[in-house]
C-alpha cells in the first residue's frame, strides 16, 4: 500500500507587491507563483528547475511559510497548513527546513559557529545544555567537520565548509523535508562533488525528502528523482528525471535542456537558441506564458492557458506537461530538429 504524499500543493498562488505604501503609488502586483500543483513523496528528491524570475525561490519560500500564499492549499502529511498567518504557517511547517543559497551570508557575522548552532536549539526549546552540546557534536560529525569549527567565525570558513554548517544548522532540528536553494552555486567543481556526495549520504542516513531548487541541470540530473520545470510562475513540465531529460515534451524544457552546457565538445553551432529574453513576471502573456518564444504557438495558445496534463506515452511514470501542442512537439523532434525560432545555427 502506498502512503500519501508528504507534501502536496494544490493550485498555489503567491503574489509579490500589490497594495500601496503610505502616501505612495499603488505597487504593481506580480504573480510570482501562479497556480502550482504537485505532490512530493516521502524520501524523494524533487528538483524545481527554471531560470531567474521563474518563481522557484518564491515557491520555496511559500512552501516554507515565509511568504503567505494568496490562494491554494498546501498539505503536509495530509494536514492542511495553508491559509495561516506567516508566523502560524512557519510553526505548522517546522518539519520543513531551508538551506540558503549563500549559507555563509545566512550566519550572523558576529557569532561563532558554535554559538549559532546552540541558538538554533535554544529557539526550539532544548533547554538542557549538555543535550544541546551532544546534538551539535553529533551533527558536526555527520556533516564531516570536527568540533574545532565551533569556535570559528563565519568568514573564516571556506565555501564548502559554509555549506556543511548550513546543513548542520537545520538538520539539528530533525526536519523531514529540506529545501536546498541553489545548493551548488558558487562552489568549485571539486568541492561541489564532495558536497553533493554529502547531500546523498545525509538523505539516506536521516531519511530526508529534498526539494532541490537549482538551475544547474547536470547537478539536477545526477541528484534528483523527479523534476518540475518552471517558467514564469507556472510548472510547464513535471515528471521523473530520466524520461524528461531523454524525451522532453514542452518546448521550453527542450530549449533549457539543450542550452545546458555539457562536457561533450563543440556542439555550439548546431544548437538552437531561444529568441529574446523572457517576458517580465509582471506582464505575463495571456494563455500559455511561453507562447511569445515558442515555435508551436498559435491562436489556441494565446486564448487558453494549458493545464498540466499527463503525457500519454509516459503517463504511468507521472510525466506531465502544460502545452496545447506537446504531441506536435514530439512529432517534429523525431527528425532531430527542434522546432524553435531563434538565432539560427550558422
Amino acid at each position, binding site marked *: 500500500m502506498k502512503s500519501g504524499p508528504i507534501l502536496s500543493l494544490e493550485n498555489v498562488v503567491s503574489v509579490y507587491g500589490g497594495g500601496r505604501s503610505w502616501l505612495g503609488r499603488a505597487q504593481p502586483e506580480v504573480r510570482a507563483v501562479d497556480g502550482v500543483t504537485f505532490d512530493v513523496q516521502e524520501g524523494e528528491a524533487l528538483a524545481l528547475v527554471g*531560470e*531567474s524570475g521563474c518563481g522557484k525561490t518564491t515557491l520555496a519560500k511559500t512552501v516554507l511559510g515565509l511568504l503567505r500564499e494568496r490562494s491554494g492549499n498546501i498539505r503536509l502529511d495530509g494536514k492542511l497548513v495553508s491559509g495561516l498567518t506567516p508566523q502560524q504557517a512557519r510553526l505548522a511547517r517546522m518539519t520543513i527546513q531551508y538551506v540558503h543559497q549563500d549559507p555563509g551570508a545566512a550566519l550572523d557575522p558576529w557569532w561563532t559557529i558554535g554559538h549559532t548552532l546552540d541558538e538554533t536549539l535554544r529557539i526550539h526549546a532544548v533547554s538542557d545544555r549538555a543535550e544541546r552540546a551532544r546534538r551539535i557534536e553529533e551533527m558536526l560529525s555527520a556533516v564531516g567537520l570536527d568540533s574545532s569549527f565551533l569556535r570559528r567565525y563565519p568568514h573564516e570558513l*571556506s565555501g*564548502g565548509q559554509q555549506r556543511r554548517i548550513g546543513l548542520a544548522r537545520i538538520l539539528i532540528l530533525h526536519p523531514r523535508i529540506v529545501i536546498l536553494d541553489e545548493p551548488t552555486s558558487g562552489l*568549485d*567543481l*571539486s*568541492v*561541489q*562533488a*564532495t*558536497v*553533493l*556526495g554529502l547531500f*546523498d549520504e545525509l538523505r539516506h542516513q536521516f531519511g530526508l525528502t529534498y526539494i532541490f531548487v537549482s*538551475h*544547474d*541541470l*547536470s*547537478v539536477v*540530473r*545526477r*541528484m534528483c528523482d523527479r523534476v518540475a520545470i518552471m517558467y514564469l510562475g507556472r510548472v510547464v513540465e513535471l515528471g521523473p528525471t530520466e524520461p524528461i531529460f531523454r524525451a522532453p515534451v514542452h518546448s521550453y524544457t527542450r*530549449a*533549457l535542456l*539543450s*542550452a*545546458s*552546457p*555539457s*562536457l*561533450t*565538445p*563543440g*556542439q*555550439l*553551432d548546431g*544548437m538552437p*537558441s*531561444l529568441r*529574446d*529574453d523572457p517576458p517580465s513576471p509582471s506582464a505575463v502573456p495571456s494563455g500559455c506564458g511561453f507562447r511569445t518564444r515558442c515555435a508551436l504557438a498559435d491562436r489556441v495558445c494565446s486564448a487558453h492557458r494549458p493545464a498540466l496534463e499527463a503525457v500519454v506515452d509516459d503517463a504511468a511514470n507521472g510525466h506531465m506537461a502544460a502545452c496545447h501542442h506537446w504531441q506536435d512537439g514530439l512529432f517534429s523532434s523525431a527528425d532531430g530538429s527542434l522546432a524553435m525560432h531563434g*538565432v539560427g545555427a*550558422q
Partner: protein
Amino acid sequence: MTASAPALLDVRNLSVAVDTDEGVASILDGVNFQLAPGSIHGVVGESGCGKSTLIKAILGLLPARSRATEGSVALNGKPLFGLEQASTAHSVRGRQIGFIPQDPFLALNPVFRVGDQLLEAMWWHGAGSDDTNREKPRAQRRRAYSERIVELLRAVQLPDPELALARYPHQFSGGQRQRLLIAAALACAPQVVLADEPTTALDVTTQLQILKLLRQLTRERGVSMMFVTHDFGVVAQLCDTVTVMYAGQTVETGPVATVMEQPSHPYTRMLLACHPERSVELKGIPGAVPSPLRPPAGCRFNPRCPEVIPDCESGRPKLLPASAGRHVACFRCHAEAVP
C-alpha cells in the same frame, strides 16, 4: 595548438606576486599561454587558480602592491611588458585588446546613457587602425562614431539599436547588457578580446545566446578571444583550445576535444571526474588549494596528487609537448613519455 602558427598573444613564464600584510603571495607561477590568431582559447580553473590575475596582468591592470616578477607578455611579437607605465597600457588596452567583464550588472555606469559610454572608448582610441575619422571636426567625428556604434549594436543583435543609444543601463536585461559590453569591447576593432567569465551571471538560455554570438563575432571579424571561466561545460561548447590552471600554475593546455576526452594531468583528470556528468561516486578532490603565501615546492598540486613521484617537489614542472597536440606540466607524464 601547432608550433608553426605564430601566437598572437604570447604569455611566457609569467609570474606575479603580491605584497600582503602577511608576506609575499605568489599568485601566478610561470604561466605559459599562447593564443593563436582567429581562435577562441579557454582558460579554466577553480577559484584561486590565478585566472583573473592573468587577465589583469595582460591588460596591465595589476592592482597596487602586485608586480610581475618574471616572464613576458607579447602581442603580435611586440613585448607588452613595461605595461606598468600607464601611457603604453592605455594605448594597448581598449585599442588592441578588448575586454568583456564578468558582471554585466556592475560594469556599466548607471547614470550615463549607453551611447555615450560606448562612444567614450572610441573617442580616446579611434575605431581601429584604419580609422579616418580621428582628424575630422568634433561634430562629424561624433556622427561617424555613433553610426559605428549602431552598426556594432546591430552586430551584437540588440533590438532597436538606434533607440538603445539614448537609454540608460537599467533599461536593459542582463543578456542585453552583456551584448552592450561585447559591443564596447569590439568598438575599437581590437585583435584580441579577453573575456572574464562573461556568462556566469546569466541564465543558461541567455548564456547560450551570448556564446553563439561570441562565436559568430570572432569568426566574422577575425578576432581572437581568451575566454576565462570556471565552467568546463562552457569551454567544451565554445572554445577551440584550452589551458587548465591550478594554484597559479599552468597544468595542461591543448585542443578542447583532447583535453576534455583524454585529460592527462592528474589534476585535470580528477577535476573532470568531479563533474556530475562523469562522477561515479560524487567524491571531490581531497585537500584544499594551497595558500599563495605558502605554496608547496615544485608542482603545486603535489600535496593532493595521488600519483606523486619524488621529482614533483624538485621544481616547477615544465610545460612540455605530449600526445595529441597538447602540452602538460607534470613530471610523471614527462617520465612516462620518455621510454
